[in-house]
């Protein structure tokens, strides 16, 4: 007992001694830090620090689906096609493609200089191996149906009804690949830019199995190879010298930092730790616009933010007037100018502007003034059987996030002021909200977004087909389905465009959803970074970027 007390007291007296010892310790620390800094300057490697956003779930191209995973995978690997810095679709691992007359068969000739990061040549067999693994039910890949669903036998293989080898993909020789489709798919080449369609290095996958995507195991055919994954912190990739275009790659090393919180990420950017951010918080937009206008990059993004209706139950089932009234009562200009404040475009249609080969449609009332819309909205509201004395009540569900909260509060306020609607806001966790939306039991109005997988109107319009599992509103319209089916098999792009535009017009007139705004890309890009091309898919391959040392 005494000993313990003595020890504790001794500890306390150590504290009293500390001031004397503190100075030398501080001095040592300072010297160490300075020395470390000095060592780094000596290396002449160019390193880029990028904010990635949330952590990718996997770097295995078949086991991931998030944008973040895609960003890293696009740096590591390369598919048959890809995008240039300005967002233009181009051939990547393939140097030539010949679709057949009827659009059902595609033949690709691969670049002879394509190489894996360990020096092996990239062959057509690697693509076949990758595709087979993608559709194999045991892989449980997220994008199997989306990417290769149109290939003959793919759907059956995914469902386990046919063996994997039945997939209509064949390597005619080492450099020639042939893919056969069930029906013509005009955007098929765009589908092949998705990382799930990248080739796979068979020997390493067979050797390492599910662990083949780990640092040290992963063999990639893109501009970079995987160096390190400090889970929760960053993913580091380094130059792949064997890459076919390696002499065009300017940056030697890229650190994708995990930055799930945009406000924290911005602080890191401002402190000089990041060269590029993944996003910019809306609270800081004004300030960044004033302080760093040349570093703030905003451009349209192929995604729409919307409020969906649950059409399978009252109050919105068979109630188009109420749906339209509610949609018209929302002042989308105020929403984007004062609430979200990031330069988003108010959405009066479903398909975002900037989509290839497409003229987006708009609501019929898009050209009215807001006051006129309010008048019409009140009329419809009354026709639906409600008034100031008999107000409509509705629940708005959204997932927990500051931005969604503010939009919901704004919409609640607008509905109250224009129509007298009493809305209750229900803020749920993302997983809970998604489950509720799928169950279609309790939801009435819910917040969601949809991002295009490829630059074509089909990726937006197909969501609303009655048999699409992502059709979360329950919208089911035979005419719409008919138009979409026709567009799906139409080889002539102009005719196809007409079908799609008609479909969108029909969709908008039925009001199954209330699109609020179209997203924008928002990044802080350091003046050191060159080659950052704004594009509507927000793909920024590190191989197109370079760092200039003149600050």
């Amino acid at each position, binding site marked *: 007992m005494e000993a313990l007390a003595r020890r504790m007291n001794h500890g306390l007296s150590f504290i009293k001694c500390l001031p004397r010892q503190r100075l030398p310790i501080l001095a040592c620390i300072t010297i160490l830090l300075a020395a470390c800094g000095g060592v780094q300057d000596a290396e002449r490697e160019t390193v880029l620090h990028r904010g990635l956003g949330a952590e990718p779930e996997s770097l295995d191209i078949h086991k991931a689906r998030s944008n973040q995973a895609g960003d890293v995978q696009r740096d590591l690997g390369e598919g048959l096609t890809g995008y240039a810095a300005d967002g233009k679709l181009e051939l990547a691992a393939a140097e030539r493609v010949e679709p057949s007359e009827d659009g059902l068969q595609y033949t690709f000739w691969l670049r002879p200089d394509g190489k894996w990061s360990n020096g092996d040549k990239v062959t057509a067999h690697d693509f076949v191996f990758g595709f087979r693994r993608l559709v194999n039910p045991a892989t449980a890949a997220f994008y199997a149906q989306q990417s290769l669903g149109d290939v003959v036998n793919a759907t059956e293989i995914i469902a386990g009804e046919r063996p994997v080898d039945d997939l209509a993909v064949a390597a005619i020789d080492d450099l020639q690949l042939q893919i056969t489709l069930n029906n013509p798919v005009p955007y098929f080449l765009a589908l092949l830019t998705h990382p799930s369609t990248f080739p796979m290095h068979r020997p390493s996958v067979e050797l390492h199995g599910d662990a083949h995507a780990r640092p040290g195991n992963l063999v990639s055919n893109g501009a970079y190879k995987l160096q390190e994954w400090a889970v929760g912190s960053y993913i580091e990739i380094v130059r792949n010298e064997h890459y076919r275009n390696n002499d065009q790659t300017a940056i030697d090393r890229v650190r994708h930092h995990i930055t799930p919180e945009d406000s924290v990420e911005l602080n890191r950017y401002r402190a000089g730790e990041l060269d590029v951010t993944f996003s910019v918080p809306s609270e*800081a937009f*004004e*300030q960044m616009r004033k302080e760093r206008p040349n570093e703030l990059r905003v451009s349209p993004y192929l995604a729409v933010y919307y409020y969906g209706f649950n059409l399978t139950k009252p109050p919105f089932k068979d109630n188009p007037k109420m749906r339209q009234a509610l949609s018209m009562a929302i002042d989308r200009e105020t929403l984007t100018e004062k609430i979200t404040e990031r330069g988003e475009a108010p959405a009066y249609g479903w398909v975002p502007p900037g989509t290839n080969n497409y003229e987006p449609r708009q609501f019929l009332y898009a050209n009215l003034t807001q006051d006129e819309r309010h008048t019409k909205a009140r009329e419809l509201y009354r026709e639906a059987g409600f008034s100031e004395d008999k107000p409509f009540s509705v629940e708005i569900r959204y997932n927990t*996030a500051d931005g969604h909260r*503010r939009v*919901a509060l*704004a919409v609640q*306020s607008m509905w109250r002021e224009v129509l007298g609607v009493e809305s209750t806001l229900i*803020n*749920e966790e993302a997983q809970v909200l998604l489950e509720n939306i799928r169950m279609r039991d309790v939801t009435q109005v819910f917040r969601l977004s949809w991002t295009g997988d490829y630059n074509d109107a089909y990726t937006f319009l197909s969501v609303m087909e009655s048999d699409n599992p992502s059709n979360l509103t329950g919208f089911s319209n035979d005419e719409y389905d008919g138009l979409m089916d026709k567009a799906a098999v139409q080889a002539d792009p102009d005719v196809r465009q007409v079908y799609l535009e008609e479909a969108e017009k029909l969709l908008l007139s039925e009001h199954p959803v209330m699109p609020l705004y179209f997203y924008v890309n928002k990044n802080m890009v350091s003046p050191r970074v060159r080659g950052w091309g704004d594009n509507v898919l927000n793909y920024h391959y590190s191989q197109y970027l370079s760092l200039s040392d003149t600050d």
Partner: protein
Amino acid sequence: MSYLAAIRPILRKSRDNKTIVVCSSILLLIAAVALIGPLLSTHHYASTDFDNRFMLPSLSGWHLFGTDDLGRDLFVRTLLGVKVTLFVAIIASGVSLGIGVAYGAIAGYVGGKVDAVMMRAVDALYALPFIFFVILLMVVFERNFLLIFVAIGAINWLDMARIVRGQTLSLKQREFVDAARLIGVSTPGIILRHITPNLFGVVVVYMTLTIPQAILVESLLSFLGLGVQEPQTSLGALVNGGVSNMERAPWLLLIPSIVLALILLCFNFLGDGLRDVADPKKKT
């Protein structure tokens, strides 16, 4: 010793203690303003005004504390926040007090196997990460307002129980307990009439730790998005909102933080004062 006998001298001494008087007055004042204030202002806590967002505090338009990112009046919202926060904290602390004292006193006094089992249960509950437990409660019961303070109370009683048990273990050995046992007072009697009043001092001190803790827990929940639902608000939620707009509209952070800090400070100082007053060993 009966409860009255334990409390009366404390009340008497409290009146003389400056800290207690000052702090309780401030708290009562804040509570009073929170209740009456909204009646004086023309603004409603949920009315948005998109043309007057981020207004500085000023007398024009009667925005004494300015407006927030949606143009809502901060004065009225702060008062609402005070109401909600105090309500949650007091109820939550009451819950944890009731359960914790009862549990801890029984476990500590009865001792032996009962104590072992009871504390084992506490261990088990302790080991369940609080945040997880709360998230799931929230999720399973759909963000019920009532659930918030039940959840907070249900977490904090564990601490109270352990402290009370520890204190009871020490008290158990004291002379007056032996005396009571000799006289023939039953076990529940001893616990109720002799142990608990003597716990008052420790409990009061710990209470003044738990009420602020409950307030901070509520703000943590708001940080995670699990707290009070919009358009209702609490001080924690206001402070959280203020942090995101820290550089653009510092008053959105400063004002609720100062009010929150003031309330917490008062409770803490009050606790100190009460401890000085309630400690039975203290002779003036």
